[in-house]
Every structure is written in structure tokens, then in C-alpha cells.
């Protein structure tokens, strides 16, 4: 059906059109700018919910809503879009989180506030890049969307950021660019080695099952893809851009960065690296697992040492992404299901934490934990309670969203795919378990330092500091609901992903 065929394109490009319209609207028409931003990101959200409703859950392993037309004929790159059970949740997460970010920005605009137009346009541009990445099924198309994210994020950090904003922005930019050059090399290498009916192809689906003439070659290509994806995730030791970028980005920049951009890396592993290069994936899995475990422990230890609330949350991302990568490295259905669940949960929870950190900074004008705390709960009780709730979800309390991704990843490590060293992965599991304890440790300590204790006098007297505003309630309520809902009903995600994941991991059995 025509509508189904172009549905994804509409989801992806509606925000781009919105960004164009905003760019053309005069600066003084503030209401009109707001309207276009809400309308276009709202339309994308609505259409992605339509996709969710029309999705055929009986065959989640199959690409649906596919569009496949000629694009760059000379190199055989095609405009091929589609979603399956793996990408659909990511797409909905993207449109939801972006929409909430737009809402939040309407009332709480980062400084400089006079550049409202540019900021909203960049959010929308970013959304096109992100949702495009999750729907592209052609390597060139994927690469374009992947890179499209860079420029808006760069400007978002360097114009609306804080402290060393330009340094952080350029660091983020160069790091990612460095990785993506190797990723592109990997794509080209696969292209030239591919043979589909006598022609080379960039099509991700057609490239599955091509063996590219040997494990040696596959391993080399995997290295290229690994560099691209691992920097984006970021895996230890490529994570150093992350605390800077997160720390200095404006609130919604951090939310989108943590909530979605990082997932592009893990998604790349699941969508491209594993199915296209299964033999290499097996060779690489133990090393990826090792790096993941290091990231879990290292991230937690760094969190214990942080004084800055945003940097602490940023480092906690390193650890959480470690759990996700550990799940992926097991190459089992359980592990990859756990990874996808973890991606969604982390997107919701850490996105929410960055919202909170931003709102707290907005009120206290400081990000130092020991300056804000103790006693935040007394000054702004509702905000404090929300913080406790999300913080506890983040440390992986059963019954909340953070739990399933972590526990299933550890479970999967107990029994990795055939051919992977069992004892090694069980060691990873134990170390990961230690990581969960450390995670609980730093998170509880953070909550304690911020919320409990006696309120400082200067804050008690400060009448500027108000509790949760209505726009915040509006923007956060869906996320908080998801934290609880996914915690008690994880099947909501697993029912979508399992079929697709089983199909994907068949090669590893």
C-alpha cells in the first residue's frame, strides 16, 4: 500500500520540513516558530505510533513499511527504508524523546535565549538524522543519516553549551568523524567484495549471507565498523569525548545525546556488524565482552569520583552502555534482546536524569553536587522524589525499567553462543555483577548527597527556586510512566524484538 510504503519517509522527513519552515519564519514570530516545531515533531511521533499500530507483530523478523527505490544509480546505492522488531522500538523512542525535548524547550530555553529559532531547527534536523539511522537499510543511506547528526549536535553544544563548550563540541565532532571514516571504509570494502547477481550492492539485507571470501577479510572490515560504532556507543577506551560533550551540552542536547545518539552505535552493531559479518563477530565477541566489562567497572568507579552532577550521569552512561554491549557480545537471543531492552530503558531513564540535572542547574545555577545538596528534598520535594525514583530505576531496581536489560545481559553471559569461551563469559558475568553493586553504590550516594541532610541556608532563603513546573510535568510524565510500565511489563518490548532477534542470531547457533 502506498501509505505504508511512504510512512517511514514521512516520519523521518517531517521534522526536516519543519526545520526548513522554521528557518524561513521571521525571528519575531515566536508563536509560529513554536507551533511549527511542536507540529512537525508531533506529526513524526503520531506517525511512528501509527507505524506501531499497523505493524504486523506476527512477523517481527521481516522488514515492514519498506520503501525501495533507485537513488544514486551510478554506485548502486538505493533509497531503502524499513523497520523490523529491532528498529521499531528505537524509532518510537526517537520520536517520543524528541517531541518531549521540543515541548521542554518551549518554556525552558537554554542561553543564549534569543536564538530560539536556530535551536528548535537543530533539534528537528537532529531528529531526521536519528530516525533515519534507525530506518535506513542501505549502507550509504545509513551513513548519510549517521553523519547528519554530527553537525546539529556540534552547533547545539558549541552555541548553547556551558563552560568549555567549543572544546567539547569539536572533540565530539572529531572523535565521531574519525570513527566514521573507518566505518565508511568498511562499507566500501563490503561493497566491493559483494556479489549479488553479478553486481556490487550497499543493501544491508542483500549483504547478509555474503561471506566476503573469508574470515580474515571479515575481521578487517569488522575493525572498521567497530571503530565507527564503538566510538559512538562509546565503549571504553573511546569514551573520553562523552563526559565533556554531555557535561557541556544544553539540557535537551544531553537528553538526546544520551537517549538516542549513543544507541546509534549499539544499533549499528546489531543491525550491520553482526548479521553482515557473523564469522568476524564470533572472533571479536570475547574482546568486545572484555571492553564492555571494563566499561561497566570503570564507569562506576568514575561516577564515584565525580563532583559534577551532569558528568556523573554521563559516566553512568558509560557503564550502562557496557551492559548493553555485554549483551550483544554474547551473540545469543537473550543477550541481544537484553541489549535492545537496555537501549530503550537507558534512553528513557538517562534521558530523564539529564532532564532533571538540567532543571536543577536551571534553578541552582551550579552543577556541583556538594553545592546543590544536601537537603534538596526539603526545598523542592516533588523534584526530589522524581529524582529518587529515576535514580533507583537507573541502578536497576527490580520492577523498574533499568532492571531487565542488566539482569538479562548478565544471564546471557552465563551461557554465550556456541563457540564462545564459556568460562571467560562467566567471568564477565561475575565482574558485571560487581559492577551492578558499584552502580547501586554511586547512585544511592548521589541521592543521599543531593536529597537528604539539612538544607543550606542560602538555598532556603532563595525564593527563585521553584518546584516542578507544569511544562516539566508534561514533558516528564510519559517518561516516568514508561519507567514503571516497562519495569512491570517488559514483554511490551520483548514481544516486538524477540522474533527479529531470533532471526538475527540464527547464524550463531
Amino acid at each position: 500500500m502506498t501509505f505504508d510504503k511512504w510512512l517511514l519517509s514521512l516520519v523521518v522527513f517531517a521534522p526536516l520540513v519543519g526545520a526548513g519552515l522554521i528557518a524561513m519564519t521571521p525571528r519575531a514570530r515566536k508563536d509560529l516558530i513554536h507551533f511549527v516545531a511542536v507540529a512537525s515533531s508531533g506529526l513524526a511521533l503520531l506517525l511512528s505510533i501509527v507505524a506501531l499500530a499497523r505493524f504486523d507483530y506476527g512477523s517481527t523478523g521481516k522488514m515492514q513499511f519498506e520503501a525501495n527505490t533507485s537513488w544514486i544509480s551510478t554506485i548502486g546505492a538505493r533509497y531503502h527504508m524499513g523497520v523490523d522488531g529491532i528498529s521499531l522500538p528505537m524509532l518510537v523512542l526517537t520520536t517520543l524523546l524528541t517531541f518531549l525535548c521540543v515541548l521542554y524547550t518551549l518554556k525552558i530555553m537554554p542561553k543564549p535565549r534569543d536564538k530560539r529559532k536556530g535551536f528548535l531547527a537543530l533539534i528537528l534536523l537532529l531528529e531526521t538524522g536519528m530516525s533515519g539511522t534507525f530506518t535506513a537499510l542501505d549502507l550509504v543511506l545509513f551513513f548519510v543519516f549517521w553523519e547528519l547528526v554530527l553537525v546539529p549536535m556540534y552547533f547545539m553544544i558549541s552555541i548553547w553549551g556551558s563552560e568549555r563548550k567549543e572544546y567539547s563540541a569539536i572533540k565530539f565532532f572529531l572523535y565521531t568523524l574519525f570513527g566514521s571514516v573507518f566505518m565508511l571504509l568498511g562499507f566500501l570494502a563490503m561493497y566491493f567484495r559483494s556479489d549479488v547477481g553479478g553486481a556490487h550492492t550497499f543493501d544491508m539485507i542483500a549483504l547478509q549471507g555474503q561471506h566476503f571470501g573469508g574470515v580474515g577479510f571479515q575481521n578487517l572490515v569488522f575493525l572498521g565498523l567497530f571503530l565507527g560504532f564503538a566510538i559512538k556507543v562509546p565503549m571504553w577506551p573511546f569514551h573520553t569525548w562523552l563526559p565533556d560533550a554531555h557535561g557541556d551540552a544544553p539540557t535537551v542536547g544531553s537528553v538526546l545525546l544520551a537517549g538516542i545518539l549513543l544507541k546509534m552505535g549499539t544499533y549499528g552493531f546489531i543491525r550491520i556488524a553482526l548479521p553482515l559479518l557473523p564469522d568476524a563477530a564470533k572472533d571479536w565477541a570475547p574482546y568486545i565482552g572484555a571492553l564492555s566489562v571494563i566499561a561497566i567497572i570503570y564507569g562506576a568507579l568514575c561516577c564515584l569520583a565525580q563532583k559534577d552532577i551532569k558528568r556523573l550521569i554521563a559516566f553512568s552512561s558509560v557503564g550502562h552502555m557496557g551492559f548493553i554491549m555485554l549483551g550483544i557480545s554474547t551473540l545469543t537471543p537473550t543477550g541481544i534482546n537484553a541489549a535492545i531492552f537496555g537501549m530503550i530503558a537507558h534512553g528513557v531513564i538517562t534521558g530523564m536524569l539529564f532532564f532533571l540535572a538540567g532543571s536543577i542547574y536551571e534553578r541552582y545555577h551550579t552543577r556541583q553536587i556538594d553545592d546543590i545538596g544536601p537537603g534538596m528534598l526539603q526545598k523542592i520535594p516533588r523534584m526530589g522524589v522524581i529524582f529518587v525514583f529515576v535514580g533507583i530505576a537507573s541502578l536497576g531496581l527490580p520492577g523498574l525499567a533499568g532492571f531487565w536489560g542488566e539482569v538479562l545481559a548478565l544471564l546471557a553471559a552465563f551461557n554465550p553462543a556456541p563457540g564462545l569461551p564459556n568460562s571467560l563469559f562467566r567471568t564477565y558475568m561475575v565482574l558485571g555483577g560487581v559492577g551492578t553493586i558499584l552502580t547501586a553504590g554511586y547512585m544511592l550516594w548521589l541521592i543521599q548527597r543531593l536529597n537528604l541532610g539539612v538544607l543550606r541556608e542560602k538555598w532556603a532563603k532563595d525564593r527563585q527556586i521553584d518546584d516542578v513546573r507544569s511544562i516539566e510535568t508534561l514533558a516528564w510524565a510519559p517518561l516516568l510512566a514508561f519507567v514503571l510500565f516497562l519495569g512491570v511489563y517488559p514483554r511490551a518490548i520483548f514481544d516486538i524484538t524477540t522474533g527479529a532477534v531470533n532471526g538475527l542470531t540464527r547464524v550463531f547457533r
Partner: protein
Amino acid sequence: MTIALHVLATATVQVDLHAIAPEVVLAGALLAVLVIDLFLPDRFKEINGAIAMAGVVGAAIALVTLIGEHRTTFNGMFVLDSYALLFKFLFLAVAGVLLLMTVDYLNEEVRGAQGEFYFLLLASLLGMMVMPSARDMIALFIALETVSIPAFVLAGFKKRDASSNEAAIKFFLIGVLASAVMLFGMSLIYGVARSTNLAVIAEALQGRTHDPLVSASILLIITGFAFKVSAAPFHFWAPDTYEGSPVPVAAFLSVASKAAGFAGLLQVAFLAFPHHTHVWAPGFAILAAATMTVGNVIALSQTNIVRLLAYSSIAQAGYMLLPLGVVAGKGPEVQGDAFASALTYILIYSFMNLGAFAVVIAVGRRKPGNLISDYEGLLQREPGLALAGAFFLLSLAGVVPTAGFWAKFFVFRAAISGGTIWLAALMVVNTLVGLYYYVQVAAKMILREAPDRERLGVPRALTVAIALMVLVIVVVTVYPDAFNHFSPRSTLIAL
């Protein structure tokens, strides 16, 4: 001897007037400017611009009637095929946009003398129009000189400005040196092949693939072209000439004149010497490597925007030469890839560079020093101009997914498919170096605070020109096949 006498034997040359109609229209326009200008009082000098524009549009209309045709005239000296059509459309488009960019500049700077400017510009354009059709060494040489000689004068158009004079003299001396070197090579080839027709030369040299005399002559001819396209180490004239010339002339030299040089280069390489790829391809590989690297590295330390664009255009020429460097002894598939990617690069480069120069002209009206620091906070002064400028710069840098990225991607792919990995790797390194200086200027425009909020006031014609370039680049960004559609079909080489 029979081949040489062939031309003399057919004394009555049949001329296909339709095939040369665009050139005829253009020649008419340039003569009209020359004559009418004599009788125009100063306050009506703008009429020259209108005539020139009419000439360009008229030539374009004449060209449209030739789409799909394949015509040969002047005994095979002049061929109109899809390759020639493509380049002619490019030259006319560039000239049209350039006229839009120049009109206010001329009215403000050289009001009385603008007639000559239009005359010279059209004369040079005429040479360009002939270039892609010239399939004979003599025709090629004449075309090249017709491009160059008016350009020498244009470079020195600011008569009372010492640096403009210097620009013209430098350009002239190096230009004639290049011509002499090329002519020397051509004469040697004529001695061996006994013909000036490119196709006949190819046939005659087929058996002489390892003749040192032929190889030396080919390298001489290539050296001549290398001067024209400002490839390192023959690039020294370019930065000084661009800086000294009026900025629109610099734009003209770095876009149209360079593209014309490439048109000739592609013809000579693929039509006259298809059996000597083992001679010229390594030469081009070295030229490309040197050109990219020298251009990019020196660009890093520039403080003047025109010099920066000059070095950037040298570096860009390196990317255009690169595909020619990978075809040595390769099959038609690699050759086709290389040819098409070089062609696409030239097309995309022309428009994005022209756009960048248009922005420089717009800013230069108020800031004649053309310093990079003048661009700080341009966003606050002229938001549209700053965004367009940043877009052109990012495209030149090859930021994904701009048109410039596609240009680089196609070249890169050609290099990989040719198996010349070292060139591909060097290209990546160079792209990253280039990224640094392009993005730095773009960041200055967008991120810095402007010292004041004074508007610059961009003239309407210039705004239209910039908008057109933005449109072209956006279209190619979204749909890279827009240009790619032309290049394979217009291929000179039989695949």
C-alpha cells in the same frame, strides 16, 4: 603523409552552423558589447551587462536545441557530443551566475570601464565553449589561448592597484610558459603521429606504447595543463593572482577557467592517449597527491579569505586529478568510474566554489581587506548570508551529506576500485586537514560575536546568485544522481 594532406585535400570545408550556433551567438554578443560600449555614456554602462547576459542566455537557448545531437564539423576538429554539451552548459551556467555576481561590483568599482570587462569575460567564455568540442590539437590550443589571454587582462583589471598588476603579470608569464611547454609537446606528437586529430593520434600511437619520445611529449602536454588547472608544483601563480585580481575574476579563474582546463585535459588523456595510461596515470597520481597535500597544508595558515579559497581550490584540483591517477592499465570499468567521478567532481566543485566566492564578494563590499577575521559573527550581521556561506564551506570540506561529500565519495570509490589504496588513504587524510580550515571559517561566521551589528546590505543580483547556488547544492545533496545522470552518458571513452 596522406593523413596530413587530408585537410588540404578537402579545400571546401563544410561548416555545420547549427553545431556552432551557441558559439556564434556568443561571438555576436561580445562584438555587440565591444561596439555599443563605444557609444554609451557613463550612466548607461549597465546596458553592457544586459547584452552580455542576453548573449549567455541566447547561447544557452541555442545549446538546448542541440541536446541529444551528435555533430561533427570542420573536418572533425569540432565535435558536439554529450560530453561537450555538458561542459558547455556548465560554462554558460557559471558565466550567467558570475554576471549576476559582478553587476553591482562593476557599477561600484569600475563604472566607466565595465564594457571592456564584459567583452573580456565573454571572449574567455567563448574559448571555454570551444574547448570541450575541440578534438584536434590545434583547435584545443586555440581554445586554450582564447580562454587565457582575456583572463590575463581581467586579472589586471584594477589598473591602479599594484597587486592587481602583479597578479596579471605573474599569470601572464606563467601562462605563456605553460603554453610553450604544451605546444612543444604537441609538436613532438605531431612529428610522430603526423596528425593533429586526437583520434588519429590515438591510432597512430597504438604501436608505440613504450616510445620514450612519445612518453616525454605526453608528459610535456600534461605539464602544460597542470599549469592551467594550478596543480602543484605548478600552482605558484594561483594564490597571488587570485588575491590581486578583482574577486569576481578570481571566482572566474578558480571555477570556469579551471573547469575548461580539465575539459581539455580529459579529452587529451582519454582520446589522444588511451594506450598510454601507464605513462600519464602515474604522473597524475603524483600530481594529485602533491596538489591535495600542498593546497591543504598551506591553506591552514592563511589569514586572507581569498588566499584561503585559492589554496583550497588548489587542493580541490588535486581531488579532481586523483581519479586520472588510478587508471594505469585498468579495464573499462575502472576507467569509466574514474572518468565519471572526475567529471562529477568538477561539476559539483564549480557550483560550491562559485557560491563561496559570491559570499566573499558580498562581504568584501564592506570589508575590502578580505580578512578571515572580517567574518566573525557574520550570522548576527547577515543571517542568510552567513548560513549560505557556512553551507558552501561545509560542502567544500565534504561534510556528510552535502554535495561536496558526494563528490569526494565518488572519487574515493574510484580510487578504491582502481586499487590505488595509498591515494585513497592520502585523500582521507587531506579531507580531514581540509575540514579543519573550512570548518574554522564556518565556525567564525556562526559562533563568534560580531564586533558590531552593522548590516552589510547585499545587492539583489548577488542575493539571487547565492540563492541559486544554494539551490543547486541542496538538490545535489539530496539527489546526487542529478549530476551523475550526465556524466556516464557523456563519457568520452567507449565502455
